[in-house]
């Protein structure tokens, strides 16, 4: 009966829990060990690496690309690229910088796609959506307002060149230092500063209505 399938999913979740415990056993692994494991094709290490960097990569993607992209898909692309290219990682920069670099590269590729289709945000997990509906904030208007603002910010960001947009999101939204951005993007610090300066100016122009409201 259906109990067989229920058993199967129970076994699956048990296995996943066990795996996550096993993963915790390896949590003390440093980056070097993680990289070595991933290079050897160790699935545990790959999962650990994913767990360690998933949020960071996701934030970079969502800030850089804004809405209108299937971010989950892009996140997967980033990690596939990471696992594939790890053999070429020489350790000249830190693993973090290297991962950010790959992420930004993938994001740039996405943005550069001339005939890019505006992809709809794919709802990966309807359960999450349902839960979110249940636990809606007490002030829905506030949330709606924030949503609208976010939309406008991203539309302003979209009007910038990819280079400027990247620097702005990384510096202002991700909190990277200029030196870090210079390392990740492999550009001289002067270039980064100039992009930031002009990018801010341009963006402020696009979002003028929102910047003046309070004044």
């Amino acid at each position, binding site marked *: 009966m259906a109990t067989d399938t229920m058993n199967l999913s129970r*076994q699956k979740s048990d*296995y996943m829990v066990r795996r996550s415990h096993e993963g915790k056993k390896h949590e003390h692994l440093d980056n070097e060990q993680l990289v070595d494991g991933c290079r050897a094709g160790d699935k545990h290490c790959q999962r650990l690496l994913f767990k360690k960097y998933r949020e960071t990569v996701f*934030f970079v993607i969502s800030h850089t690309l804004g809405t209108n992209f299937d971010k989950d898909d892009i996140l*997967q692309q980033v990690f*596939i690229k990471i696992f594939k290219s790890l053999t070429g990682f020489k350790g000249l920069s830190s693993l973090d910088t290297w991962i950010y670099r790959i992420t930004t590269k993938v994001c740039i590729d996405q943005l550069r796609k001339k005939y890019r289709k505006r992809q709809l945000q794919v709802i990966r*997990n*309807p359960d999450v959506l349902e839960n979110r509906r249940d636990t809606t904030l007490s002030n829905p208007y506030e949330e709606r307002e*924030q949503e609208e603002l976010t939309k406008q910010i991203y539309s302003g960001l979209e009007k910038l060149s990819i280079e400027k947009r990247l620097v702005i999101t990384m510096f202002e939204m991700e909190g990277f230092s200029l030196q870090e951005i210079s390392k990740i993007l492999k550009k001289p610090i002067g270039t980064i*500063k100039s992009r930031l300066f002009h990018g801010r100016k341009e963006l402020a122009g696009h979002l003028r209505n929102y910047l003046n409201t309070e004044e």
Partner: protein
Amino acid sequence: METLQNQEKLPEIQRLRTLLQSVPEETKSEHAWQALENSLFARMDEMESIRASGSRKLFRFPVMPAAVFPQRILGIAAAACLVVLIGVETFYTAYRSAPRPLADSQILGVKGNVTYKTHKSVYTGRPIQKGQQPPYLFKEQVFETAAGATCIVQIDEGSSFILSENTKLSVKKADSRSIDFFLHTGSILASVSKRQQNQTFMIHTEDAECKVIGTIFSVSVSPTSHRTNLTVVKGTVSISGKKETGSQELVQSGQTVSVNNDKVMKPQTATDEQIDIHALSLLKMAEEMRAESTVPTGLLDIASSPEGAKIFINEKFIGKTPLAVTYPSGNYTITLTHPDFTTWEDRITVKQLNSSFITASLQPKPEEKEPAAAKQVARKNPSTRKKAITPNKKDKQPKQTVQPARKDTKDFGFIMNPAFVEALMQMTIGEYQKALVILDSLKELPEISITEKIRIMSKIAACYKGMGNFEKTLRVLTRRYKEAAIDIEKANILWEIINVKANCLQDYEGAEKDILTYIEKYPNGTWIESAYAKLGEIQYITGKYAKAIGTFQYHINLFKSSDVVEKSVYTLANIMRLDIKDYAMAVKWYTKLLEEYPGSSYYGNALFERADCYEKLNRHSKAQKDYKKYLELYPEGHLKALCSSRLTLQE
């Protein structure tokens, strides 16, 4: 830097920075992350398998803009591809049409004094041992049969010949394209399957050549006159004189023709004597023998206490106990008789690639007037798990005889060793620890044979399993697996190892590896279907969705319809719905289940789940239909409330 610092002091820029930092970070629940992680690794597995299988995706060229990729280069590349393709095609055609050795050829039987050459040496009258690598039929090979000798040779699938006594035959050519024999003297009866267009089968004699188009016929050359005679039993053979051109006859079935003074005479009706019935039946028998070797068989291991009882299967004597034979699968009546003991009888089922262990305890014949009901003990080795033997305990009383009882117990085989029986008794009442002590001591006895040791080991494994000590079970099973000599037994032990690993130890990686070994080594094993299903389930449990989907699909295609397949279809649909979130595919699999397995126990669930998928696909009317159908079919079903609420919501 100064400019940048100055810029930061501007209120507009400060406001911009605050605005940018106010953008909320999109978050995901742990569950969503887990789903994403699983989907990523499934995607990677899929890419891996595509790369490993060398699929055509490997040949996907990047499409470059026309400006970067001038037409000239495109033209050169296309031409190069064309040249390569033509080359490959030519090579493949040449490779396909090249004559190959007759891999299926073998000498099926030799009787009397036959001389035949093999690649390495010349044998004279050596009988063919079963299992011995038979020599191929090859060019320049010569067969010679002495008086009273016969030799049966298989040429390829469906073609064979038999040489009568006093025959000498040389093989001029023997490959997949042409077979040419030269008959010096004697007689050959050949049964030849239909030849392809480019295939020839010729028998030359000094004065004639017979061309075959798929038939049964015999050619003989008289030892005195050296005249050729051809008799066709079935089909048509063309015969032509060698020296006189244009002398050719088509000989039909039931006709005979002789060559006289290099001229082919007119065909005549063959007499019974000319059609060598004996040789024909021999040839048929040899072919049947070969065909029989492909009949599914199982292992029958019969032991009795005491040993030496005569074994009759369906009243046919097959040997004395202890005996292990491969026997065609089927249901049989097995009877064991011993002069001093009562007759033992039971029904058995021999299953393909399954081992059936029978241990019969023969009871001494009762004293006159004191007939005691003898006991029957017929057990099945637990390793086979399936009910291969079904002893009917109640109504099968051993046949009574009136001879005096035999008291001598020295002959009792090990299997009925009282200690072993005691251990079995302890096991049946759940006293595994006690059974284990006995079995451990028995195992160390110096006089026990390897077969007996394997039996004890299987019981030890069962004890550990009963005690919940699965690691030990596994260790014992692994040892048994290494020691087992027969493939069927090995296959069954491996299956048991897989079950212990997957069900008891949750060692899914190990179980997966073992299942792959099982599939590779025992593709006709008893558990092959379950093996595919289990493999899919394990791959699903371990989050290898792409692999699991592939396995399930393969399983469904391979075995078409059975309970196991039905479950696989349902599981596959669920993976698509819950894990891959490909609702269209999920609908496809649910529909398959609903249409092809209307009596399925998953029917109700599948109906509801398909409706759920339709909803996700915004096909609300279809969803409504399914919900309604569910309520109609299962008014008290466990999904009743959910269906009703969803229907109300939609309406």
